[in-house]
């Protein structure tokens, strides 16, 4: 495959920017994306479908004052780009002519994947799926269904704007997930595990996928004997890496500058204030190793960075994209992301996590008289205006007299972001990142990571059925 710089001719990009800004626009941007995905679904002990897809196109953005015009096209010819540039430029109403600054980057990016997945035979990929399926079924006779999914994606982007920016990135992500169904006297239960990183096929050299399969199977089997979760407020201990989504939902979204600016965040006007327990330091870091939310540059061409959002409980900063940081007269933070060339970028998280405390995790459990131990959280959702958020517990247990006891059936937990942050009583010293996730906002999904050490929240409402 060609390097990202050749996604589109440099001169053609320059011409397109000139045309986009010629109608009185103040700033213009061309975003080109070439995405190739392949996936394989293994279900009922066989490959059900192998699918490949390809998407190539450009999105052109023009801003004038607070107004944005945007048009996307899959036609990358001179005519196609010109039509899109004119459509995007239509928000400006003629007037002053800004000349774009000549592009001053090289627009070249090399893939950081050690082994590009497209160079590996499909036969080898099918073998992996079989291997995971067998390991999961061998774990326990109660496992009646196993669904394994492999997916690889290579996304090459090229971003140029009228300020002369010309940046490229070549992103590869590889993922394997397994879903097990266990059948028991009381019905069916499910267990899921996913391993995914911003890497190529080396994923399978670095990770034990059979162990992952066994964990998923074990989870489903454990839940066969699960009792209904309690209903009401209890202390909740969250296992390391199992609950970063809590922070993603409880405060991450509320720290996105676009929501803050519109008054749709409970954290507006609170910079410099104590918003969390003093032991809490929250970071969003797009540069973090090969985590799922890692990217070299965001989808506006801005290099990602480590952004400390809450330090020792004090709110230190929000997350920013081009539009919002420009309006605020400050620099962007590398958080302008978009699902595809068909979407407008907005403020998004990358890898969001709470840093280590200094308590032994075993002490946290022993110190909890009665409560709930959550080993794995599912997805979540937040109302940023009120701070109320929910997240699902996909593996959880009762804590009785300082010990982990009976497994619990699935359910949601609910809390209020600002309250929960204040109610974090103790943070462990065993930080881990969690499973790869997809964050949805205003209809756009982007890959994100999250993580946290084992920690205890004084009280969360548990949405079970047992009194």
């Amino acid at each position, binding site marked *: 495959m060609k390097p990202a710089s050749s996604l589109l001719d440099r001169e053609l990009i320059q011409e397109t920017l000139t045309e986009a800004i010629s109608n009185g626009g103040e700033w213009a941007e061309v975003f080109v994306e070439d995405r190739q995905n392949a996936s394989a679904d293994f279900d009922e002990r066989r490959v059900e479908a192998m*699918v490949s897809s390809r998407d190539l196109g450009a999105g052109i953005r023009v801003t004038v004052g607070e107004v944005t015009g*945007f048009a996307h096209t*899959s036609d990358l010819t001179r005519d196609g780009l010109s039509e899109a540039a004119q459509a995007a430029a239509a928000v400006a109403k003629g007037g002053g002519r800004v000349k774009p600054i000549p592009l001053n980057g090289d627009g070249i990016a090399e893939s950081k994947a050690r082994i590009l997945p497209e160079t590996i035979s*499909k036969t080898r990929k099918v073998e992996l799926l079989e291997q995971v399926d067998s390991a999961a079924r061998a774990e326990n006779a109660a496992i009646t269904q196993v669904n394994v999914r492999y997916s690889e994606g290579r996304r090459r982007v090229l971003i140029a704007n009228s300020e002369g920016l010309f940046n490229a990135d070549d992103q590869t992500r590889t993922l394997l997930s397994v879903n097990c169904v266990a059948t028991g006297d009381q019905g*069916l239960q499910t267990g899921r595990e996913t391993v995914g990183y911003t890497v190529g096929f080396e994923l399978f050299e670095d990770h034990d996928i059979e162990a992952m399969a066994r964990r998923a199977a074990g989870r489903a089997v454990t839940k066969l004997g699960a009792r209904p979760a309690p*209903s009401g407020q209890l202390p909740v201990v969250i296992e390391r890496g199992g609950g970063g989504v809590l922070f993603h939902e409880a405060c991450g979204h509320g720290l996105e500058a676009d929501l803050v600016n519109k008054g749709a965040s409970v954290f507006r006007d609170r910079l410099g204030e104590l918003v969390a327990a003093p032991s809490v330091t929250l970071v969003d870091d797009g540069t973090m190793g090969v985590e799922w939310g890692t990217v070299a540059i965001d989808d506006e061409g801005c290099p990602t960075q480590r952004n400390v959002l809450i330090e020792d409980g004090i709110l230190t900063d929000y997350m920013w994209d081009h539009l919002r940081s420009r309006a605020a007269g400050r620099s962007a933070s590398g958080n302008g992301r978009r699902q595809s060339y068909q979407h407008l970028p907005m403020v998004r998280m990358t890898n969001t996590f709470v840093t280590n405390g200094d308590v032994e995790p075993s002490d946290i459990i022993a110190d909890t008289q009665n409560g709930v131990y959550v080993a794995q959280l599912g997805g979540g959702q937040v109302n940023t205006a009120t701070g*109320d958020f929910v997240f699902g517990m996909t593996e959880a247990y009762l804590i009785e007299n300082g010990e982990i006891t009976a497994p619990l059936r699935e359910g949601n937990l609910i809390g209020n972001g600002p309250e929960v942050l204040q109610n974090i009583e103790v943070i462990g010293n065993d930080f881990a990142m969690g499973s790869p996730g997809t964050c949805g906002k205003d209809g756009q999904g982007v890959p994100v990571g999250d993580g946290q050490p084992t920690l205890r929240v004084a009280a969360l409402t548990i949405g079970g059925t047992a009194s």
Partner: protein
Amino acid sequence: MNKPLELPEIADELVSLARRNEQIEVCLSRSRSTTVKAYSGQVESVRSGMSEGVGIRVIVNGQQGFATAGSLNRQVLTHVLEEARGNLQFAESDPDQGLAEPDGVKSPNLDLVDPEVLKMSDHQKSSIAIELEQRCLSADRRVSSVRSAAWSDGWGEFALASTNGISVYAEGGSCSVGVQPLAVEGNETQIGYAGDAARRPDLLDVDRVIAEAVEGATSMLGATKPLSERVTVVFEPGVTSAFLGTVAGALTGDRVVKGRSPFAERLGEQVGSSKLTLFDDPTNVASLGADNHDGEGLAARKNMIIENGVLSQFLHNSYTARRSGVSSTGSAVRGARSTPSVGLHALCLKPGVIDREALFAKVGNGIFIRGVNGLHSGVNPVSGDFSVGAYGHKIRDGVLAEPFSEATIASTLQRMLLDVAIIGGDFEFLPNGSGMSSIAIEDIALSGM
């Protein structure tokens, strides 16, 4: 408007490339869309674009390959066909795999093409978005700002052709509005949302959207965490749709044949209250989900799902039907970019007769749910466990009382169907195409304080 014949021609041409023993199905789509958002009394953003899509299935001896791309460029189309052929070699042979076969059922022949939406100027679209924002701001002094006020419209065409002689073409458009006002009182902020969608701009009920969105935000001011207890809940129609949509999802063929539905073995049994009748009806033009064909090109048809509480049938596409030894119910759903799965076009609940006030009076004491959160994380359609975040109002002595938030409601899908006590007469078609009413369900665990 001149009907562009291009897509069907391209589809037929690709199908004609089928080799001996090859079954080929080609899906093509092309669409244009515009979204205009307003903020602070002016246009905030205008987004428009053209999207194309192709999806090709190739099946040889029960092995299926699929490939897709976001372009109708000739070179791309040829490449996609080759990719699909390449992919099929790795799929295990499955004797039930195959394309849909024409079944003689006649298409309802609905006229769903209404070009009114194409006549809207950018100025008209902007004006509506700005109007949504400004009227929310002036509707109530507590509305401080509007997070999002948007107009969207789209127009698309879709062609499907296969070596089994199926060839269908459809085009049409729709438009929608949505608004999210913020209401502030003291230190508290609440957000509301309402939206509407229709095939013609003049059918959008902007007045109602504004009133509902503002009421949704302002009426929640002062909400507190309720006490945990077992209660009767009343779902508003949108929440009913989310709940019954999840139930119906567990009654689709792919879940059933793979043993991933709690209802898999229960055909013909009483799975719900006798008051409950549920069907999928894409032949009703009043629904935005109305269609002449399903995602495999078979005629759209009305299917009973639950009749007076009895599970009458599962929904199938041609693959799950073949595996179950029955006929497809015309329930394949897909975009051009994906393989056909089994799903709902226009899920409808048979309405009751009493209006919402009478329903509250009949319930006496309970809670009214305006919205739920975390359906994707708290509902397991395999085990049936149901637990979601909920907000709304208390119902006391038969009328709406104070608001509550930060609570969950929990039960199982299986129990909830049996516990449906009352179905309201306030039936409406929602923007998602479903036709729903308010319903009351007994004995739900409310978790709060």
